């Protein structure tokens, strides 16, 4: 089994996600980019899990199980994140993350 393609895909997806987190101004887009990062990780987990199973060691589902956990937690995280952004919007009529610098030193 070829592992590289999956890892490349995951790396690209991760980079896209990081770029989105760091560069996008829109809070919702930042959250979506976080999702991309998590999914890149999921791909890695599943890919390694499948690779591990292919090495004559019988079926190993721990990669998939881990990925499922991540998906579940990502769902929770995005729920909290969207709630935050909603409240933010209510307060400042904006979801531009650059505007949120209340902790400026």
């Amino acid at each position, binding site marked *: 089994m070829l592992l590289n393609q999956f890892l490349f895909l995951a790396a690209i997806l991760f980079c896209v996600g*990081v770029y989105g*987190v*760091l*560069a996008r101004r829109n809070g919702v887009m*930042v959250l979506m980019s976080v999702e991309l990062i998590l999914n890149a990780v999921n791909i890695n987990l599943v890919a390694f899990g499948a690779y591990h199973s292919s090495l004559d060691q019988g079926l190993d589902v721990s990669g998939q199980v881990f990925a499922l956990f991540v998906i579940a937690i990502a769902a929770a995280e995005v729920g909290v994140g969207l709630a935050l952004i909603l409240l933010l919007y209510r307060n400042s009529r904006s979801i531009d*993350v*650059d505007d*949120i*610098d*209340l*902790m*400026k*030193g």
Partner: protein
Amino acid sequence: MLTHVWVIPGLMTVSFLLILFFGKRFTERVTSGIGIFFIAVCFVLSCVTVANWVQRINHPIADISADVALVTQPGGGPAPIAGQSDREAIVGARRGPLEGSIDQLVKAGETTTPASAEAATTEAATTEPAATEPAATEPAATEAAASAEHEAKASPIVARWTWFEWGSLKFEFGFIADGLSILMLFTVTAISLLVHIYSKEYLHGDVRFTHYYAFLSLFSAAMLFYVTSSNTIQMLTGWELVGVCSFALIGHWWEDKKNSDAALKAFLTNRVGDVGLIIGVVITFYAAGATSFNVLHINQYALSPGANQTLLLVGGLCLFGGVTSKSGQFPLHTWLPDAMAGPTPVSALIHAATMVVAGVYLIARLYSVFYEGLNIGANFVNYIAVIGGITIVAGALLAFVQTDIKKVLAYSTISQLGYMVMALGVGAWTGAIFHLFTHAFFKACLFLGAGSVSHAAHHTFDMRKMGGLRKFMPATFATFIIGTIALMGLFPFAGFWSKDEVLAGSLNGQQHPYVLMLVLGVIGAAMTCLYMSRLIYLTFFGEYRGHGTPHESPKVMTIPLWILAIGAIVLGFLNLPNFFKVGSFDYTTRFEHFVEPTFAFPEINHAEFNVGLAVGTTVVAGIAIFVAYQYFWRRKSVFLGLRDKVRAFAWGYKVLENKFYLDHLYTDVVVGGVKGPVARASYWFNNQVIDTVVNSAGRGAVASGRALYTQVDQKVIDGLVLSTGTGADESGEALRHMQTGRVQQYAALLFAGVAFLAIILVIFV
């Protein structure tokens, strides 16, 4: 009890600490109560010890256990064996199951004496003290017992611990129980108990009552420690401690310059002798192989055939320097009469009955050293005996011209100490110790009687202001007379038996009779009768010359007097000569039997009771008393007015009044001669050298301080402190701008950091 004699000085130390720390909060009654209670307990324990010792001597088989082993073995060179036995005793102790516990070591120590058989020591280490006794049933031990029974039964018991080790040197800490130390325990605790009780009334209302009782306790502790010490280092400690207590108690009423001078004089005179003592301790230590300070070891060495005679002689003479000062021997006796400045019970306890005999005890304890070093056995004259003899006569002569009742007694004490030292000098060991014992009782009786007289007669000790007191204070008079008769050595009072033994010992000598000593002793006995008659006459007879009405002292003072007086009558019978032996009942020479050591002790020749001598001395004493009676009571004597008629006598009187000019010799010639040049030299040295050094040190200190302040403190340290502050401030200001509040920027930095670490990881790992 024999292995635990340390308890006795220990208890007195507790008493001292209690009184010292809490005495101020207590009333006089409680303070004296503490002291009396502790000394009474010690007295009881001492009696138990005496009983144990008598038991041990009388029933040797039941109790020899390990001691026999040692006594029988030292055949080949005693010194190495003693050293070896030490090591084994300790090793045995360590091997025991209770390793490390002090009790355990005591048990191990129990066998110590001379013990060298390893089996015996191990057994002692692993069993209870009582259980060691059956060790005698081992076949070897019983055989040995049969052969060495006499040696075994009187061999001392030494409990000891290792204090510290340094290379092959082992310093020990130990307590010895043998006839001599037990005798001293008994004497010291008995007299001390009576003095504690007596002082309760005598010192009633004194400003420093607590101080007095504290030092009395410390003195008892130190003296008991001294007499139970098993090595010379400990003895030195006890010796100095009693000296300190003596100093403190002589100067008890230090507000009076005279008293503090007397205290200083006592202390400094003793220092002179103590230098000799310390050197002597060192010499004997090195002479005996530099392995142990143990007195038995040193004695063993002195008796061994290979002993270095010269070292023993020099060591013995140096030690005798200590004896000369502490036991008031001529010519260092001058401090003792002045020491009477202290409270009278102190004079009785310290400066008559116990501390001053520390020197006699030292000779007795290290007798082999003196015996071999000064060749007592083979000579007909030697240094110790001569000094003792001179002291007898010098002390008695000086006692004639004193008007202070206590000073008469002080010179009498000096004279009697002369007897003890002379007896040791002629080889009459038992006579000396016996005289020490009886003297302690009757001299304490006399001193306490003098205190009672003074208590009655308005606190004066001047006999010119007394007289006729027998009518006012019958109890004091009776006890005083008993003490006096004992001191004069009249049959059958205690003094007779001990003094006679000393004189018989002088006549008998060892290989040659010590004739000179005998003559001096008899002259001293006659003079004792004369000056004591004078004292009795001036104090108790004639008309009362003081003011006020004298009164008898309260019971708390007279009861100790009666006890001591009874002692002065009966204690002499403890060493009845064999001459008086009737039937098979064994009551003669008990003292010699129980007290005289048999281990590491020279073979001395015991003098037999000499009827001629005893009658002779009694006649001499009788003549002396008759002469005194004629002179003082009847006022009809050829000696009356002799001082005015014969110039030589006037001159002699003047010499005596000035105490042989010894004080002048010491203060004016020795001290004065030394102190002028020394003072000038030290003044010059002070001005030129010390002041320069001090001044330049001061200036240097100021300059370096200033330099330190401007350069180091202001620049370096302050710079560091300030730069820390400003550094934190400035870096904070710089870093403040990084905190933008934009989460994305933080995340970017975070990511950059992670990426950076990842790159490092990839490249370097």
